[in-house]
């Protein structure tokens, strides 16, 4: 294809899309409101193993080549281990495993002894585990920058600190993207702006049903490397990084409302103690490992939790791309799929028929509230709750001794 493509969103999906477009020789400008990979794309578990996805095969094909293709290290490591502390967890992990086995990938069961050989930190009472000869993990922070540098190496343009303010339409096509730094003429547009995709799509009259939420992770100090760092279980996702840190997440998320185009700084919650508990249960032999960081990030989910990767009928040159909270690992494949949607209108290596926007045509407008996917506060109040005042109605504190100063 000739012409100029504007990719909106410097998260991992937008970055991969722009990179694939440049690889095909397409002129591309990526517009990012802040810094590339800054939000959830650079802060996640780094997993690259999504057997339920139509992009799974391509994910598996591409990751082992990514360091070479990008020219910069991603810290990709192949293989995964799932650790089951009890038979119920083992059954759950078998279910996921079988999805991959059905698609021709190989996995082996590990008894407690074999598991301890590979992951010496597990409890003596461990039920067992699974070794996946597929999947893997990479370093999200390093990978997003690798994409960005690779785009620049191929002559693509990245505009950081640039916010999209509107779109110019002519007929059924977007002809320019308006930004706070001026207009960008375009022949095609990809909106891959994570939780902000809905707000941007609404500017061209397209409704994208997504709900933003906060999720969090903890990180320990480095430990000696185990053989396969991609070992998780007990309701946690995560990995031992190549540096040796344990980085794990999971557990309760919090549904949010994003009032404007800026992603607010995502804070951690007391859930970090529950993450520490689960990691302690999973790896009791390294109970001494010190937690040195926690993070949170904001991700978006569609009503069915599946991506929307769709080139629309109107505007006809617009592609909507949200990975529904699972974007990092699938990014090599999603970017290629989106590139094909832009350049040829269809993806020739994966069945994206389940990922159209039109599947939500009949969605009730209050779908978020119906699912409880809305901000929640104990008193139902909006806004921040400040500290109590002695002269305010109601009990001040557990002690109730508010007025002792008279």
């Amino acid at each position: 294809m000739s012409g100029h493509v504007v990719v909106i969103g410097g998260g991992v999906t937008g970055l991969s899309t722009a990179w694939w477009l440049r690889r095909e020789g397409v002129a591309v400008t990526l517009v990012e409101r802040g810094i590339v990979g800054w939000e959830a794309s650079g802060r996640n578990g780094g997993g690259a193993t999504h057997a339920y996805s139509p992009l799974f095969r391509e994910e598996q094909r591409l990751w082992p080549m990514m360091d070479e293709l990008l020219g910069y290290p991603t810290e990709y490591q192949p293989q995964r281990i799932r650790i089951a502390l009890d038979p119920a967890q083992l059954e759950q992990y078998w279910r996921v495993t079988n999805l991959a086995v059905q698609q021709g990938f190989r996995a082996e069961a590990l008894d407690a002894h074999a598991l301890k050989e590979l992951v010496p930190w597990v409890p003596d009472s461990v039920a067992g585990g699974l070794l996946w000869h597929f999947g893997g993990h990479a370093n999200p922070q390093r990978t997003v920058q690798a994409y960005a540098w690779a785009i620049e190496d191929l002559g693509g343009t990245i505009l950081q600190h640039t916010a999209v303010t509107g779109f110019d339409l002519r007929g059924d096509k977007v002809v320019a993207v308006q930004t706070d730094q001026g207009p960008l003429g375009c022949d095609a547009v990809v909106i891959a702006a994570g939780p902000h995709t809905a707000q941007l799509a609404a500017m061209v009259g397209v409704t994208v049903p997504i709900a933003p939420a906060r999720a969090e992770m903890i990180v320990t100090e480095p430990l000696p490397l185990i053989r396969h760092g991609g070992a998780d279980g007990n309701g946690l996702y995560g990995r031992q990084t190549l540096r040796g840190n344990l980085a794990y997440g999971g557990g309760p998320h919090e549904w949010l409302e994003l009032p404007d185009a800026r992603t607010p700084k995502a804070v951690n919650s007391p859930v970090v103690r529950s993450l520490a508990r689960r990691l302690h249960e999973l790896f009791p032999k390294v109970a001494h490992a010190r937690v040195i960081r926690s993070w949170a990030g904001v991700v978006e989910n569609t009503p069915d939790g599946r991506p929307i990767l769709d080139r629309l009928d109107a505007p006809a040159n617009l592609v909507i791309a949200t990975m529904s909270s699972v974007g990092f690992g699938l990014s090599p494949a999603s970017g290629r799929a989106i590139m094909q949607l832009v350049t040829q209108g269809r993806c020739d290596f994966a069945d994206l028929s389940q990922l159209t926007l039109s599947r939500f045509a009949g969605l009730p407008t209050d779908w978020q509230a119906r699912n409880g996917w809305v901000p929640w506060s104990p008193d139902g109040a909006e806004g921040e709750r400040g500290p109590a005042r002695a002269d305010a109605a109601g009990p001040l504190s557990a002690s109730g001794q508010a007025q002792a100063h008279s």
Partner: protein
Amino acid sequence: MPRPIDRTSVAGKEFPATDHLQLVVLGAGPAGVAAAVEAARLGLRVMLVDEHPVASALMGIDVPWMFGERMTASVQNQPRMLERIVAARPELEQAFEVGVDVRLGVYVWAAFVTGPTSRALPCRMLALADETQSWLIGFDRLVVAAGARDLAVAFPGWDRPGVMGAQGFAAAIGLYGAFAGRRVVVLGAGVTGLRCVQQAREAGIEVAAVVDVAAAAHEEFATHGVTVHSGCAVRGVEGGAEVEGISIVPVGGGAAVTIACDTIVSALDTVPNVEMFDLLGCAMAFRPEWGGHVPVTDADGRCSVDGIYAAGDCAGIGDAEPRDPALAASSGREAARAAARDAGFAAPAPARTIRTHGGDREARRRHWLQVHAGPAAALTICRCEDVTLRDLLGVRPPRYLSYDDAKFAGRDVRTLAGDGPVNQDQVKRLTRAGMGPCQGRRCREQVQTLLAMQGNQPSGSVPMPSYRAPLRPLPLSVLSAHDESAALRANWTGWFGIAPQWLPHWEKVPENPEYWGGRIFLDAAK
């Protein structure tokens, strides 16, 4: 009709708190004790929390101060250290008398308040821990009196055991009475260095010399009869496993001089300890005349987040003013009065704090780094992650990775700056500088200065890298939520628990919309 709730979310989850305080004071230095005593006298229910004595294992990685492995083995005896600290802080007696709930040897490692990304929290909470477990308390107001931290600046050999910071030195002599050295060289001929000399003299520790790259030294050194080597750079640290001396050389060139010593106290400056303010989301400003990033406050110490107050050195350190504990105590009392009035208690109006400003502290830090880091690309900047100056300014991947060096030939901090203002958190992600177990305590200020210098920018143009919980490195076994609510445990999912997300793509999403948000794996993930 009840509101539908996503049971896999935090909505409705309880986080059990062991107590709820009207006021918590963080830090039992002069400012914190005065704040706690004043607030208790005004009728508030107050808890005063201080981390000392800290675990010797934390001292080993220079948390919270640069102890430089110069503490005697007595710090491993925590009960004894506790007695020692109570004795070293006689003003604590007052706090006990007025009924303050005093917790020593307790870390405050996180604060959780409601905000745009955290509305479901039942109340404002602080996360505490001792050496064996962690717990939560609810609070209405918080006076942060977290004091000052050591400023780490690189010079050849600064990463050797035996090189400590001014705060670590002061604590080793005073608070802990556990200093393992006998003869010190003090780096920094300003007020911080002067204080170290005074403390050393009072403790009967020999000061072999004071060294500074600056041409002029504080005039008071003369009254102490200590040798000051102005206009000198550190050439290296002498000795094998232990420091045996320091080699210095005139900045403009000349003969090197070796000074025998067993400890080097890096006392160029201290920085306000602002980690809790950042965690709470308080507005911050870079004020080099106050020692670095400080919380934005009103005259009474109120921060931008309601109910949070700053007192003492963490609110900003004036370089020109003497470190008078009475001044710190006065700022603590004022913060307590402001908190009491805000809580609806009758309290005297806080008296406006007069703070004197110092000179441009950042210029001194730059001078130090220019002299030492300028010619030494191999100088280690981040000790935990082994990041050299070359690695940092060249945004190189860490050593454990192999990479194509040619690819990075055209990439450095300056090219990164071409895409937008240099952001220290971004550089941290790429180089790992500041990502280690000391949580950036030994490099975050100098990385900020070096990045700004490289881009010919004022240091304030580099945004402050974020602080993350836990504010102290704490073991998994300690952080572990032993008191976790049953509902949280029962509804745990690895990732959202949206059923169709985990069904194979060839299976259609069930038609029933109520199935969205369902939890297929829940029963298995106990």
